């Protein structure tokens, strides 16, 4: 059975979705917009709706990236706001272990799990250097250090959620006992990076722990994720890559003494759905044409950290200037060689732009087709071990999400690939994940 999540990202995942005639970009400031999307996904029996996080405004060349929809709502505020107006769908949010304290994280996710009746999920992210400038922490911790810190955070939040036994909140009115003190314990965690006394003052979440999501694809990230995460977000371009990654993650999970089935691999999936394949191709082309040259130029300028609008479109690619500026970009890592490999010897800025338009999906699965084709494609990934489901990246919200739910979901259901209705009430129920029992005391 497939698992499906909706990845909410402003007006949609297509970089120019906000220019689509049926898009209402001003609506992204309103809760109605998110409520409608969540309810469509819930009508489609999705496992969850997911909000990502950013810790700094997206900039290019020293100022805000004006050509694309960059609004980034606090994701926890967003999922909390949906808790009382959705019934079944899981509510997932990224939140950084680098810039939020573990006690705060534990209290917030416990609160949302209680308010939603057991539907919260946390995509645990360690934050790259882009956010450091807003948190004044001086030297930004390197990646191994961030993961080591995150290990501590996972241990602390679990211990905090376990500080109340499931039956500690006794509410015995006759005896005047609100909670049973024998069933609430401090955690007295002392690690290399953090120390927390506890206990939490919020009872154990309905799910025991909210569902853990992780998205690291680096070697460190994979080991870290395999040690505790239950849902893995990833970007996979081919079925073979998905199969290899999933097999590796399952093996790593077993290495940590976990059942491989307790870990669900969900690559991103960008669908372009048409009634026929021809219609899907036409839609694809229509979206392509929404990418105004200024948007493409903005993306390139962001990528190369150089304002390319100062150069003529039909002129040569300014390789010398680009090389000089790439050196300045601290966090570009392995991306640099990929960017450079994309540039062909005869490229003008214009020809490069044209060719790169199709590649704005950050390496996620991209599929244009009719509902049958998309359902088959998803089914193949599931059957052949490429994934346990997908985190859907609709090009346009709510429009293309609605089309997916109305046209593709019924086909998936008819093929027996996807649930016809929710069988349980918590997100763990939807994923078939066991509710973790309270762990032993740390001392």
């Amino acid at each position: 059975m497939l698992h499906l999540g909706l990845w909410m990202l402003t007006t949609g995942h297509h970089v120019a979705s906000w220019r689509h005639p049926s898009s209402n970009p001003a609506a992204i400031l309103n809760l109605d917009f998110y409520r409608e999307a969540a309810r469509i996904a819930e009508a489609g029996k999705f496992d969850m709706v997911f909000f990502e996080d950013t810790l700094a405004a997206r900039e290019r060349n020293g100022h805000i990236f004006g050509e694309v929809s960059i609004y980034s709502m606090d994701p926890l505020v967003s999922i909390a706001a949906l808790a009382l107006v959705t019934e079944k769908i899981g509510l997932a949010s990224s939140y950084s272990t680098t810039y939020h304290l573990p006690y705060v994280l534990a209290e917030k996710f416990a609160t949302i799990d209680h308010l939603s009746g057991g539907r919260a999920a946390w995509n645990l992210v360690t934050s790259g250097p882009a956010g450091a400038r807003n948190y004044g922490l001086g030297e930004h911790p390197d990646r191994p250090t961030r993961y080591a810190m995150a290990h501590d955070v996972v241990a602390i939040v679990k211990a905090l959620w376990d500080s109340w036994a499931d039956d500690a909140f006794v509410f015995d009115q006759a005896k005047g006992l609100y909670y049973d003190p024998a069933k609430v314990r401090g955690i007295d965690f002392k690690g290399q990076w953090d120390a927390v006394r506890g206990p939490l003052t919020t009872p154990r979440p309905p799910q025991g722990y909210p569902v853990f999501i992780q998205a690291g694809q680096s070697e460190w990230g994979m080991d870290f994720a395999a040690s505790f995460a239950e849902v893995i977000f990833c970007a996979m371009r081919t079925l073979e890559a998905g199969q290899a990654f999933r097999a590796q993650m399952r093996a790593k999970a077993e290495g940590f003494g976990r059942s491989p089935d307790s870990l669900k691999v969900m690559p991103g999936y960008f669908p372009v759905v048409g009634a026929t394949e021809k219609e899907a191709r036409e839609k694809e082309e229509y979206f392509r044409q929404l990418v105004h040259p200024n948007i493409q130029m903005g993306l390139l300028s962001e990528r190369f950290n150089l304002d390319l609008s100062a150069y003529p479109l039909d002129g040569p690619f300014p390789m010398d200037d680009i090389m000089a500026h790439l050196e300045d970009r601290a966090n570009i890592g392995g991306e640099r060689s990929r960017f450079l490999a994309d540039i062909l010897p005869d490229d003008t800025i214009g020809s490069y732009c044209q060719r790169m338009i199709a590649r704005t999906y950050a390496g996620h699965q991209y599929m244009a087709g009719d509902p049958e084709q998309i359902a088959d494609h998803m089914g193949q990934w599931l059957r052949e071990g490429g994934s346990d489901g997908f985190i859907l990246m609709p090009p346009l919200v709510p429009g293309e999400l609605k089309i997916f739910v109305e046209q593709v979901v019924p086909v998936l259901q008819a093929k027996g690939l996807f649930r016809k209705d929710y069988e349980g009430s918590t997100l763990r129920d939807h994923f078939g994940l066991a509710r973790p029992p309270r762990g032993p005391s740390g001392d």
Partner: protein
Amino acid sequence: MSVPQLILSVSLNGAGHHPGAWRMPHASRAQALGGAHYRDMARLAERGRFDFALLGYPPRGSALAPPGSAEAIRLDALSLAAALIPVTTSIGLVAAAPATYWEPFNIARAFSGLDNLSKGRAGWCVDAAWRPEDVGNFKRLDDIDPAMLRERTREFLDVAFALWDSWEADALVFDVANAQFTDHTKVHRIDHAGAFFKVEGPLNSPRPPQGRPLIVQTDTSRDGLELAAATADVLIIRPLTMADAVETTGAAKARAVALGRTLTVLADLPVMGLAGELAELMQGWVEAGACDGFNLLPASYPDDLEAFVDTVIPELRRRGLTPDDYGGSTLRENLGLAQPVSRHAVAARG
């Protein structure tokens, strides 16, 4: 002769503010953890045209309360306020959140979200207290010297205000023809580097509809009154007597006026007494300059809030002390407060 308009807030919690409230026959466990209870109480307060509901008030530390106390359970106030947005329409939603172990960027972003999603109904009840029992739970407190707390809190607020100002109100243009979503000349870095915080900005979330969420403070110490006069929109006091209140309120308001600002003062009001007497007392306090209104602390939910809405509110209306309905669309409008304009927009206009 015109009578003063009385401002009303209500502090929402589980069973109520009396220590024994949870043992009342109608109290239930669901009140502690269920969203439905908070939804119903917020709607009830909205029916009574309360200006705002307070979540997480009074702010308290992370020490576990004794087994007989309902204070042993607390929920994240910001998440609660967010959850109430779609189930209410007009009432303000003010959440307590720390200005100590949180980061100004996180606070500014969360309340920008709350204000945007609620279309201008958000407020932040600033919890700037340093409590010894919190030290073992929040590592960030290790960096704070309690002797410097006053200066640090002031800088924390300055940074948050600057971040809300970093987007001018008309920065989002949605210009489809020219592919301009945001006018980047109207989004500004703040480049703050002070004694306690270093924040570049800009915020990654547009300007709140209210310009700035309503700023509520509760510290009535000398330092607290000074901070409130300089930065708060609303100060909540807990006076023992009316004379007490007259003195505190007078001093705080005078200081605000000296700084060219307006400060609204609310007094905590534990609910008891007959409707007519209560209304009389409330009117007396406001007319004596003891406060501008009240923050209701119902002894038990839902009974005491229900009784207040059904009996005291009509009496207050009869006296012309409270309006029948919400006149404005934002919390600031309902309180008759001006909307702050971004410092960058002011600078641009010269």
